[in-house]
């Protein structure tokens, strides 16, 4: 049996992880410097190399999902996997490029890049898993690499604290998932997701298993009330990692949740209701928490809660009513949110970089540090504005289009409650402008803050390139939303197929 290309993508990413570490280590010893330039370029090379098999997997996707079986274990590159791997690889590559400038010269650079690449590999694997336990293993691999990345600045009390909280809450959730897996195994006698779908009937054990999955994967996907780790972890991680955590890791958790929920679709029709309920809660709590934030990365972290809420609304509507539009819209929003939030984090990271460079400290970037940012760093300020306005759902930017599609699905359900939730979502978008817009106003003031005034003349090119690419993509998708149909359509279809078995 020939090995399909998507397997090569995972193999390359994981296989090159030790190489990145070792090369970086060797280079470090040779130069006797804290940073290791070799690790940066090795990581970039690994990411670019992994694009080759992924590209082949994408082009051959039209022939139907590729499947690879090894013993009892099977991996399948279906629509969900397609979206998740493209998102993870795209953002991962951009994050590596961005970190070339951002992380230059920091201690343990080689570990940073090795973990980053390994995390992307785990996410791609997670997308392809077809049985429950295999999925858990990928999920845990992703979690472990992300713990290390969150606590990367381990000499900083804030990062340590965030790492501990993230680890404990996440690991506890992960044990609940295992208990759920045990209950599913007990009831259905199998771990394969499609066999579970066929065998599942309403029973207390499967209901509790579903509840355990919701909370267990919900920790990673940041459902309120298990979101409490997220603002800490996402704000304390190095910026490139924050971008990935918000842009793809929580979405990976959500995808895992969707896979198990759809496998248990026959157990009860409440899954959709629960998802929509969490969606509404996430939007409201996320917005209220973000409204009064002054620390920018924390604000962006809370805004991730809000956007998970929109996705949950779309997925919930799709699962509850069985309409494709909701699934497709939410998938579209997953991708757009990845772009918007990564862009927001990376652009904010530019100012954080300025802050570091100006004061060489790890204090948080606060809103007032942005005063006059556009004067000296017009490009980063423009990119940040685009990201924020897109998150706020203003056209002609990507966020508008995917939110619209989710709302269309809600109204098309014909259910007054779900339509009401869409209006609630729209009102939340308005509320969110209450904290996005003032940040933009601050940047376009003329009088600069001390941080900006003492900052370097210009930013490294490697930080500006990802900003430019993502900002351009956001505008293009906003003007011409069908650009992403090749991703959102198959993934939406895959979700609906999983739902109906």
């Amino acid at each position, binding site marked *: 049996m020939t090995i399909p290309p998507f397997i090569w993508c995972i193999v390359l990413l994981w296989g090159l992880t030790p190489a990145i570490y070792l090369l970086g280590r060797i280079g470090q010893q040779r130069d006797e410097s804290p940073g290791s330039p070799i690790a940066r370029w090795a990581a970039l090379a690994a990411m670019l190399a992994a694009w080759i098999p992924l590209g082949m997997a994408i082009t051959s996707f039209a022939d139907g999902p590729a499947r690879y079986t090894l013993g009892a274990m099977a991996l399948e590159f279906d629509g969900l996997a397609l979206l998740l791997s493209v998102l993870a690889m795209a953002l991962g590559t951009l994050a590596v490029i961005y970190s070339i400038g951002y992380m230059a010269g920091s201690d343990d650079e080689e570990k940073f890049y090795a973990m980053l690449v390994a995390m992307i590999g785990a996410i791609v694997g997670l997308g392809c898993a077809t049985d429950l336990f295999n999925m858990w293993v990928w999920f845990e691999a992703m979690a472990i690499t992300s713990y290390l990345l969150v606590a990367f600045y381990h000499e900083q009390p804030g990062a340590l604290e965030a790492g501990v909280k993230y680890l404990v809450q996440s690991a506890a959730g992960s044990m609940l998932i295992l208990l759920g897996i045990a209950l599913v195994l007990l009831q259905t006698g199998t771990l394969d997701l499609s066999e579970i779908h066929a065998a599942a009937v309403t029973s207390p054990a499967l209901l509790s298993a579903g509840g355990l999955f919701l909370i267990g994967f919900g920790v990673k996907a940041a459902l309120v009330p298990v979101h409490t780790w997220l603002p800490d972890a996402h704000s304390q991680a190095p910026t490139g990692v924050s971008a990935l955590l918000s842009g793809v890791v929580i979405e990976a958790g959500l995808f895992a949740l969707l896979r198990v929920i759809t496998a248990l679709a026959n157990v*009860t029709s*409440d899954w959709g209701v629960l998802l929509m309920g969490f969606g509404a809660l996430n939007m409201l709590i996320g917005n209220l928490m973000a409204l009064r934030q002054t620390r920018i990365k924390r604000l962006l972290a809370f805004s991730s809660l809000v956007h998970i809420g929109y996705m949950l609304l779309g997925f919930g509507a799709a699962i509850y009513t069985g309409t494709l539009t909701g699934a497709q819209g939410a998938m579209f929003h997953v991708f757009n949110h990845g772009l918007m939030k990564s862009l927001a984090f990376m652009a904010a990271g530019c100012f954080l970089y300025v802050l570091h460079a100006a004061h060489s400290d790890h204090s948080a970037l606060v809103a007032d540090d942005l005063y006059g940012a556009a004067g000296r760093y017009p490009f980063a300020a423009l990119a940040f504005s685009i990201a924020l306005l897109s998150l706020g759902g203003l056209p002609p930017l990507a966020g508008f289009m995917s939110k619209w599609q989710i709302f269309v699905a809600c109204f098309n359900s014909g259910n007054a409650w779900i339509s009401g939730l869409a209006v609630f979502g729209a009102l939340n978008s308005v509320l969110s402008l209450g904290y996005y817009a003032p940040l933009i106003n601050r940047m376009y003031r003329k009088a600069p803050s001390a941080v900006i005034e003492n900052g370097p003349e210009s930013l490294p090119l490697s930080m500006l390139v990802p900003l430019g690419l993502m900002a351009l993509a956001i505008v293009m998708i906003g003007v011409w939303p069908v650009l992403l149909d090749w991703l959102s359509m198959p993934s939406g279809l895959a979700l609906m197929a999983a739902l109906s078995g």
Partner: protein
Amino acid sequence: MIMSSWLIVLIIGVPWLGAVVLRLVDDRRAQLQHTLAAAFACITGAVSVALLFFSSGEVTLSLPLGEVFGVFTFVPDAFGVSLSAIAAAIGFLAVIFSVDYMQGEAQLGRYYSFILLFIGAMVGLVLSGNLLLLFFFWEITALCSYVLISFYNDDPNAVKGGLQALIVTQLGGVGLLAGALLVQANLGTYQISTFLAEAHTLPVGVLSLTAFGCLFAAAAKSAQAPFHYWLPGAMEAPTPVTALIHAATMVNAGVYLLARFYPAFEGVPGWKTAVVAVGSITALIAGIMAITAVDLKRVLAYSTVSQLGYMVYAIGVGGVFASQFHLFSHAIFKALLFLAAGTVIHSVGTRDMRQMGGLGKSMPFTRAVFIIGSLALTGIPIFNGFWSKELVLESGAAVGPNWAYIIMLIGAGLTAIYTIRMVWMVFYGTPASEEHYHDAAPFMRVSLSVLASGVMVGWLLVGPFGQMMERTLPYHHLHVLTLPELFSEAFRGAPLTLTIVFTGFALYLLLRKFTALWDQFDWLVRFADLDFGFSWLSDRFAGAVQGVAESVRVTQTGQLNWNIFGLVLGLIVILAVLIVGAA
């Protein structure tokens, strides 16, 4: 593609291309920025004029975007081409005016870029034949308006005004969003023409929700009560922006929306009454506030709110043609008034009318054009405002409720009072300082002269305008007028309104000196200064939301045990929901 589709591509594409180009030009090359902006705006204006000759009720340009987003269509009907001509032409004049007005300002690239983006979006808004596309452009105009209001970001008032405008219009936008989605969900299409044709097949409840959703959106966008308070706050924008966005174009979008969907909504029970009520109440309270305000731009802002009230009222009484005609007149004379006021502010350096006075001597040109605009505003023949306002009142007299008609007549009197008060305080009376101020600069004069001549002769176009509407708007069944008909129609009610207007003039001029009498109305003045409590309410509401947000923050305790508590709590709630659901 046929000629008109190319024109539509150009009329949106050119200003948007300009917006991108202006963003890329280095801010140190100000002269190049001025030139480029003027060039792009000029081309857009020319295209919009050309498009006037290609009006049709058919879809001219369509871009299919799949099932969810529908077909993006553009229809160059009478509403579309006339309003895009206004947007592009006044946009061009505002840009020309800015060459002098914004001389030496920083961040010109951002300024011009958003003005051009706005022009393209406004044109797109009125030309689009698809509800999603309409909403898309609708929101872009709100974005541009926000950015340009808070253009002077260092000024806290400008920031507050911009945010308020953004939030209020976005809030209104939710109404339009809900309406558009209801139409899509029930008819399976976003096409406005299909909606107008098949509106009667919709369930009454759905159609009512859509109609009132659109009224909500229109009230927020066109600064109608109870949302009118954002427009005075928007006066922090540079004056050319105010003239373009907050007088001549964007604020008309609400009126446009109501006019566009009038055939679908007119049968909805209570809708027309609600529209009349919104329009007339707004016209009244804005008139009162305009009398008490002392900031020149705020007086004009309240006056805009009040005139928009007239247009909304006209739609409520079925006078769609009258409302569009007034919109057309108002766009020109109010742009003229704002730009002339901008000239004054630019010279004097303040917006407070108490620090002006006697400026007529040093600024004769500005005085002349300002008075032309004022005469049109008060409705003195033969200026364009006279004809359109008479038409609005005539439609109201014929079919509308009497209470509303009386309110509108009182409104005409209030208009006369605040207008003459404004002219007097700025150009006559005793000068507040001995300084000699310079009159309008050359580029400013060009804009002002063009607009002033538009005020004097623009109404002559009523015949072709009406014909175009009749030809391209199949669902509206408009009662349009030719020029002779306009004469007889307008002069039927003119004696009454002119009496009221001149009474207003006389009242102000005679009673101006009796300060003791004015003091009697002190309570009204103070109440009006508070926007009749609406902006107070809005501030309280915003404060309450902030307060709730602050108190929710205690849930993030930062304690690890608490985080685990969230996990346990979530598990219990989910299991409870599942048990209840299964039972």
